[in-house]
């Protein structure tokens, strides 16, 4: 009796783990971007190595890329010459080593964790890696997907393999059903708050239960994406008809008889009844409200109707110190309701919430309303952007007074010039509220696209369910 994780892991072991050596694990799909790959290609050159499986390697550019269109002079408005050089280096590396690249302005370009699935490259039962911690996203398809460092990017380029010790397993059982206005983002924040930001360390999470089965693929991607914020390298959802329907017809998905054979194999992936996990937790989705963070790590989240926790209530001195420090940084007062907190900027996008469904949710709030503060809407990929424009979402965003941008990581990581100023507060649909993440001295409140859009039209933290009623 094996779990989903065990089946995928066992199916990729080239040489098994021993007391003295880790397992050699085969990688089916390697996604590459400009920030964490240049030093790995340098190692290949220094050692005279080639890329072992270029056909299993896909590159795009997202972190350092501008989200404003090409200028009249045909040049991209890079934040600085370093960003331009990094992007140019990726083009050089992909050309030299024969890697498929979806470059700026091309139709396949976008955030690496958005474009992999949408081109059908991410498939159930695969091992997927990328030099990016949010690689966990691809686990939504029943793949074992995890972030790696740049040295390991080099290992995979050169050998298509990684040295890995088998992680432990953690089942997150989600009972019930999410209520109206409560999304996968809220569920993920509630899970991280329960586990703590280090609670998943050493584990691969499998999200299970009726609430997870009821989620769309895009919602499952949001959920798995945030696994790393609980310290887990990977999060997985067993593939089912929802998965297969989403994949069918995508460019890199199998077709014809190969599709039928693939689906038959994929149906064997879900964990066997009675397979056990090293740990299990259970959460009831029907009790959840929209969630929002108040602190400087993603585990510091409360229901939107809640109050900012008081360090005085914290028994552990170290945790009390962390909380005091977080509230001081965030400029929030203990014991006060989070509702009504003034907000300066709203960011809607990222590998967490930059897909079509996320933009539709934001548009539900923005339609016919006007933003009160600077609001940036950044589609996750060129494909998402085109699909959203075909539905008129760009018009809704612009009519509301918000900015409709080109795809990229943008203000999630603030490497490309899109950032907030010191002391500003941003409600963001991204994944990290770490100090300075969206700009030095900036303050981030993580929330769902609905909650972010509600903040955009009210200028403060607001319950989207109430805003939609108005």
């Amino acid at each position, binding site marked *: 009796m094996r779990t989903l994780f065990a089946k995928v892991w066992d199916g990729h072991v*080239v*040489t098994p783990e021993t007391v*003295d*050596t*880790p397992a*050699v694990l085969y990688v089916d799909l390697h996604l590459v971007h400009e*920030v*964490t790959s*240049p*030093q790995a290609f*340098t190692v290949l050159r220094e*050692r005279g*190595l080639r890329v*072992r499986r270029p056909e299993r390697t896909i590159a795009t550019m997202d*972190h*350092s890329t501008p989200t404003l269109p090409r200028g009249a002079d045909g040049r991209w408005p890079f934040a*600085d010459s*370093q960003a331009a050089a*990094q992007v140019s*280096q990726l083009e050089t590396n992909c050309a030299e080593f024969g890697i498929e690249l979806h470059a700026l302005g091309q139709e396949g370009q976008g955030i690496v964790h958005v474009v992999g699935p949408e081109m059908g490259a991410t498939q159930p039962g695969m091992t997927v890696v990328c*030099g*990016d*911690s949010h690689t966990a996203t691809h686990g939504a398809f029943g793949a074992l997907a995890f*972030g*790696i*460092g*740049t*040295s*390991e990017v080099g*290992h995979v380029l*050169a*050998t*298509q*393999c*990684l*040295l890995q010790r088998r*992680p432990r397993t953690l089942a997150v059982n989600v009972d019930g059903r999410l209520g109206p206005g409560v999304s996968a983002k809220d569920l993920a924040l509630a899970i991280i708050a329960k586990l703590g*930001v*280090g609670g998943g*360390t*050493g584990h691969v999470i499998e999200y299970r239960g009726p609430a997870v089965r009821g989620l769309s693929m895009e919602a499952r991607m949001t959920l798995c994406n945030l696994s*790393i914020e609980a*310290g887990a*390298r990977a999060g997985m959802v067993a593939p089912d008809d929802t998965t297969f329907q989403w994949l069918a017809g995508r460019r890199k998905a199998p077709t014809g008889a190969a599709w039928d054979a693939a689906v038959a194999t994929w149906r064997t992936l879900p964990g066997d009844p009675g397979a056990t996990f090293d740990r299990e937790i259970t959460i009831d989705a029907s009790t959840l409200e929209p969630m929002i963070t108040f602190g400087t*790590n993603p585990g510091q989240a409360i229901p939107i109707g809640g109050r900012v926790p008081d360090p005085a209530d914290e028994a552990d001195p*170290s*945790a009390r*110190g*962390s909380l005091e*420090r977080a509230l001081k940084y965030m400029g929030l007062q203990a014991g006060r309701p989070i509702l009504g907190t003034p907000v300066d900027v709203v960011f809607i996008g990222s590998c967490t919430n930059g897909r079509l469904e996320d933009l539709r949710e934001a548009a539900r709030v923005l339609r016919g309303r006007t933003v009160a503060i600077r609001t940036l809407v950044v589609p996750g990929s060129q494909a998402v952007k085109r699909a959203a424009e075909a539905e008129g979402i760009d018009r809704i965003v612009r009519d509301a007074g918000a900015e409709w941008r080109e795809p990229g990581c943008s203000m999630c990581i*603030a*490497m490309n010039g899109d950032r907030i100023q*010191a002391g500003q507060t941003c409600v963001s649909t991204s994944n*990290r509220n*770490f*100090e*300075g*993440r969206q700009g*030095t*001295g900036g303050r981030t409140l993580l929330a769902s696209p609905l909650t972010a859009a509600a903040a955009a039209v009210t200028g403060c933290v607001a319950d989207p369910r109430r805003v939609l009623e108005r």
Partner: protein
Amino acid sequence: MEPIRVVESRTAVLPRENVDTDQIIPARFLKVTDKAGLGRALFADWRYGPDGAPRADFELNQPGAEGCAVLVAGDNFGCGSSREHAPWALVDFGFRAVISTRIADIFRSNALKNGLLPIVVDAPTHARLLAAPGAPVRIDLEACTLTLPDGVVVTFPIDGFSRHCLMNGVDELGFLLARDAAITTWEEGR
């Protein structure tokens, strides 16, 4: 990478929990295409004020923290982003070991590939180290022992493979490349 056998050093103590890799090296320093000189960006937003001057209240700016090769940090060090720039910056700054009660998975994996020894200790040992910034410790990687400032010796866990690689300055890529035949056989057998 530089082999590690014994590290004898005073400790720099950063008693904060959940130090994420965005704090270890902020994202704006990731636009490089090499790894040289990143020590200057280590903890940049905690080390320096908006005017670029060192912040007097930051632990690593204290006179005793200078030249320390061992960093003692709060629980769950290195969480968040997978950026290997974090251990690159720590090593370039002069650290050879990081001690905490918990070290995030990807950071730990990256540290091991760069001659930075991640050491996990129990809470009582951690508390003694946190209480004694600047005190001398001795790490013996061969014996997997950590000698505390008061002379008490504790052992720490590390798997044999990681220990071998660190002690000999061997990188894992060579090990993987030597498995080329096995990988080919496996690919053909799928």
